[in-house]
């Protein structure tokens, strides 16, 4: 099966590109990034503020099952409907710094569209840390599994 989401992350660079083709008309794809109640649903986060305009800003907040709150925020540098968004993104209270994001929305056919996300980090190591976050989570789960197994053996 072909993978719909592609990641391009060259070794030693502080940037990456995420691309994805959607079975959605361009307008619907763009709408998913603009309407707060829709963003909340697919991103799984609360939208505290989302100003879709040049010099606007946004604030999201996620609550984990334990009730801990995580903040995400940034400012919008460019906003061209159905075409382009340039914004910064930052996870509050983490060492991952600020990233610069270029979103390009493109119509493929009447019913399909494409998103290209170009993300630039402050350094190579910051990019690599962000890339490895989900993997580290997987390793931790594997580690917990070992713990479980060892506890059972005793």
């Amino acid at each position, binding site marked *: 099966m072909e*993978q*719909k*989401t*592609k*990641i391009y*992350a060259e*070794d030693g660079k502080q940037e990456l590109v*995420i691309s*994805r083709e*959607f*079975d*959605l008309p361009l307008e*619907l*794809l763009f*709408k*998913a990034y603009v309407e707060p109640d*829709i963003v909340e*649903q*697919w*991103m799984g986060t609360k939208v505290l503020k989302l100003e879709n305009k040049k010099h606007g800003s946004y604030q999201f907040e996620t609550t984990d099952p334990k009730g801990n709150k995580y903040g995400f925020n940034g400012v919008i540098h460019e906003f061209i409907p159905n075409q382009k968004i340039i914004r910064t993104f930052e996870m509050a209270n983490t060492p991952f710094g600020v990233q610069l994001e270029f979103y390009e929305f493109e119509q493929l056919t009447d019913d399909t569209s494409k*998103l290209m996300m170009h993300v630039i980090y402050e350094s190579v190591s910051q990019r*690599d840390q*962000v*890339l*490895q*976050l*989900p*993997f580290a*989570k*997987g*390793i931790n*789960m*594997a*580690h917990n*599994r*070992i713990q479980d*197994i*060892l506890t*059972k*053996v005793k």
Partner: protein
Amino acid sequence: MNLRRDVFQAIADPTRRAILLLVASQSMTAGAIAANFDTARPTVSKHLQILTECELLTQEQNGREIHYHINAKKMKEVADFIEPFRQMWEDRFNKLEALMKKHKPK
């Protein structure tokens, strides 16, 4: 058997990730590795075979024993371990797509 193994397939399995984690701290014999799992020994051997075929582990003959080492170079390749990151975005975008397919214009 010359079946080419996919590295991502190799690290997709939780037991194999656990094995990599164990061997990452020190090289071990198959027996020592198997002792950490309550899975049958042949199952662990099979996992070791797959990890070796993918070159994530290397074998070293030490007298009568075979020690397994982690192959840091190959790990780095996988490495930057992009697959879980990609999967995270894939899930997110799938959600977006499903949601917008049901979306009725107001």
